């Protein structure tokens, strides 16, 4: 027996290993515990509160023990990129932005919650659902709707989306990315609104000029193809025709410096804020001076990249005579803060041109019944092979329904046939909601 029991002492080697391991853990715990704890503290350990939409619909709720979302699956999915989740899986949700700093850490007591918070958001869950359905669940894209008088964002959806109560196994590729804020896309023809603004301000005789379209425009060795042969056009007609030949010429005439300045001043290159959520900056490269690429960049191709949110701000400012009501996600009684984004005369002129574009080319009686005062622009952005991304952006020049919008659907083809109907559906839902 002595032999056996002496050997039994080796069992204690296991115990020694465990004591050693626990010591390592405790040292690390003391050293790095704060980082570990606060990494998941974004409302996770019980910062109580509720996140509601503008009508009081609870989108997310946290109490001492549980965190929950809406009971309605469609609401959860449609609003996911607004709410985010408790695990900070999408970096841009309200839960991450507003509840992130609601905890403190101490070695003795771990994380402690601060006072519960109630947030009422400017979004309308029903409009988010409408936008989500308008794009279609099996497509990828983004849509935003904003009141350009108050700056309130009424809907922000990104597809594919996530049902936050599901595990990650069911999540589609790139679904955590909020395509409104956190992704940039080639803008295509909607960028002509920016080129036009630069030209309006920096080409003195713009409105007396005629731009010839022969189906393509050659600059240096590069041919820029157009969608048709538009002949001689005024700038208004060129925008309405979405004529690539004409806008390539306008871009070259306007010049790199002017274009870059306008792109920059309109915020397309900035990290833009939406009440604590931040967008990624767009791209407008600086080495275009004297380069054929300048022509391409003027029609929203080349390496131009923008976020849907940046475009929404821009069209919202145009709608509001150049004044941007600062976009908001948290509902507040305070008067909207306004800043001038676009010169007033430029904004008026652009509004006129966008209105003309709709009236002259988009057949509003058929395509947009009931949308009074629609001013808009389509975009069909080539994406290096494959079906182009479809864009539709603009606003209702209607004091009763002052809505600016942007819709982008990836690989959906022409803007007018795929993005525009989605935008129309969203606008109609918003108008219907106002009626209630």
């Amino acid at each position, binding site marked *: *027996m*002595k*032999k*056996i*029991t*002496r*050997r*039994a*002492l*080796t*069992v*204690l080697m*296991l*115990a020694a*290993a*465990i*004591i050693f*391991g*626990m010591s*390592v*853990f*405790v040292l690390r*715990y003391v050293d*790095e*515990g*704060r980082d*570990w*704890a606060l*990494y*998941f*503290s974004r409302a*996770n*350990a*019980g910062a109580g509160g509720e996140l509601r939409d503008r009508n009081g619909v609870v989108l997310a709720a946290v109490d*001492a*023990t549980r*965190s929950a979302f809406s009971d309605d699956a469609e609401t959860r999915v449609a609003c996911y990129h607004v709410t985010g989740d*408790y695990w900070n*899986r999408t970096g841009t949700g309200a839960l991450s932005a507003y509840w992130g700093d609601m905890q403190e*850490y*101490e*070695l*003795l*007591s*771990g*994380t402690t919650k601060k006072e519960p918070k109630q947030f009422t958001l400017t979004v309308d869950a029903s409009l988010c659902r409408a936008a989500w359905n308008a794009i279609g669940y099996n497509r990828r894209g983004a849509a935003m709707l904003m009141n350009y008088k108050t700056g309130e964002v009424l809907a922000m959806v990104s597809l594919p989306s996530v049902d936050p109560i599901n*595990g*990650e196994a069911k999540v589609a590729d790139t679904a955590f990315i909020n395509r409104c804020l956190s992704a940039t896309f080639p803008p295509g023809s909607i960028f002509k609104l920016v080129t036009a603004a630069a030209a309006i301000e920096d080409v003195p005789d713009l409105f007396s000029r005629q731009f010839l379209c022969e189906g393509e425009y050659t600059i240096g060795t590069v041919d820029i193809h157009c969608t048709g042969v538009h002949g001689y056009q005024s700038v208004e007609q060129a925008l309405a025709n979405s004529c690539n030949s004409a806008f390539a010429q306008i871009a070259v005439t306007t010049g790199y410096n002017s274009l870059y300045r306008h792109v920059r001043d309109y915020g397309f290159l900035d990290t833009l804020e939406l009440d604590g959520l931040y967008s990624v900056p767009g791209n407008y490269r600086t080495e275009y001076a004297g380069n054929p690429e300048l022509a391409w960049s003027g029609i929203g191709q080349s390496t131009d990249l923008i976020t849907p949110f940046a475009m929404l701000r821009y069209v919202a400012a145009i709608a509001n005579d150049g004044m941007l009501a600062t976009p908001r996600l948290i509902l507040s009684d305070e008067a909207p803060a306004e800043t001038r984004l676009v010169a007033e005369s430029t904004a008026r002129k652009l509004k006129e041109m966008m209105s003309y574009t709709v009236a002259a080319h988009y057949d509003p009686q058929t395509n947009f019944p009931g949308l009074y005062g629609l001013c808009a622009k389509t975009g069909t952005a080539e994406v290096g092979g494959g079906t182009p991304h479809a864009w539709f952006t603009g606003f209702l020049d209607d004091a009763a329904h002052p809505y600016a919008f942007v819709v982008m659907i990836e690989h959906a083809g022409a803007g007018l046939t795929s993005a525009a109907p989605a935008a129309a559906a969203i606008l109609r839902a918003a108008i219907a909601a106002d009626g209630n």
Partner: protein
Amino acid sequence: MTWSKYALIALSLVIMLRCIRSMLSSGFEAETWATARFGRDSVPVTHWENLIGRARSADIRIDREDVERIQAVLRRRDDGRWTIYDVFSRGGVSVNGEPVTADGAEVESGAAVKVGGATLRLQDLGAARGSALDAQRTSAGKSVSPALTLFELTLFQLLLLFQHLVTAAGVHSLSITLGFAVLLLLEWFCYYAMRLIGRSGFEIETIAFYLTGLGLSVTASSAPQDMFKQTVLILLSFVLFLLLGLWLRDLRRTARTRLLVAALAVALLALNLATSDSLNGAKSWLSVAGFSFQPSELVKVAYIYVGAATLDRLYRRRNLLLFIVFSALCVGALALIGDFGSALVFFICFLVISFLRSGSIATVFLAVSGAAMAGFLAVSIKPYIARRFATWGHVWEDVYGAGYQQTRALGAAAGGGLFGKGAGGGWLTEIVAADTDMVFAVICEEQGLIIALCMVLAVLTLSFFAVRTARRARSAYYAIAACAAVSMLMAQMALNVFGSLDLLPFTGVTFPFVSRGGTSLLACWMMMAFIKGADTRRGGSFVVRPVAELFSAAGAERKAAPKGAGRKKGGRGA
């Protein structure tokens, strides 16, 4: 709520300290079964299995040149008769002139036993003397009152219940209350039943109940709808603990059924392997009549049951091969099933048992075959292992992927601080499998680091106790079984805790007693029976028959009747 946190920690520390004091510091005198006399020397025989020889490690040491280092094994049977085996196999052992073979020969009290050049006379103590000597030993639980410790544990669990009632949804209040109530009743029933049969050693049960209570708390937090199931499992675990303990009382019966148990274990694993292929899902689960369980957990118990052996058998080499084959079958089957964690636990246990059983040259052989098994294991589930190893130490680089569980375990563990958020107050239980694979972090978050460390300390205390009590075990079988059981518990705990905290690759084995899930709990309680089997303190264990009872049974020289008496007493205890 806040005061209850501090009270829980204080109670937890007091319970642990009392158990440690009771188990590791109180008197640990040996039992005396007979006296061995050779020449003028006389030594007490303190085990049922004794090595006789010249070596220092011999239990009955005869320091003469004409005695081999280890020449014979002297063994006492359950019925009180002594047998001597010649393990050196040179024919140097005889009883009353009759040569003894490896198959052994009976030794009557007073018979002349020749061991090498020495003559040894075994003098049985007799009922009166044996009982008198036994009465001088310190009885278990003398220095630290087990009733008071259990009372403290009761307070501890009532406070846990209180915390749950504050945080839990109203629907579950009743089931949570019932669960804790059943646990408390079981504890006190167990205590009084043990007292009734004259047992005062209650530390092992106290520690097991302490951990089981924390496990029940985890269930209440993570899956309150399963409280009823968990409660039933606790009852079932306890019944199996008692049954295995009572079964282990009879060493001969236990030793004889080893082969049968081995066959059953292999059959169970084979069944698991056969049916899991068709299921295609969680392979380590077996579903019988709607009740799913993990065969590997039950096989753990069988593994120890088969792996431990009596001293006389240890010195007959042919038994080792059987054990190696059995180990290879177990580990191989687990590797095929894909249960990497359990396979590793078995392998560690294999190393411990094989070292305890063999010692030197054989150990090398066993270790080599063990390494071969590990190699087979690694190859058979390579991508799986490779992925876990790649993540190891880098969990924060892939918080939403491979490091998902570990980072959340660390975050929640740190979030709890030293004092915790209170039962039901954590968020980690929302994560899938947190209540099994990351249960250390769940307790860390809800009860704080101190209580979580107490859980680890509880298992370590069992281990130290097992090693200590193994020295006094009657048979090598009990000593090996107890050490193997605590090795398995420690290996399991180390893989669970260190895996979830990124100190080892994540394996997903259970924390003994605390992880939710039935089969693991059953197995852990049955392990306790093995530890109880080695606890020979006076009144220490229901698995160990009292010295006095055995002497009187042997004295009556009737086998059946006293055995029946012993059973009757055990039966009352159950």
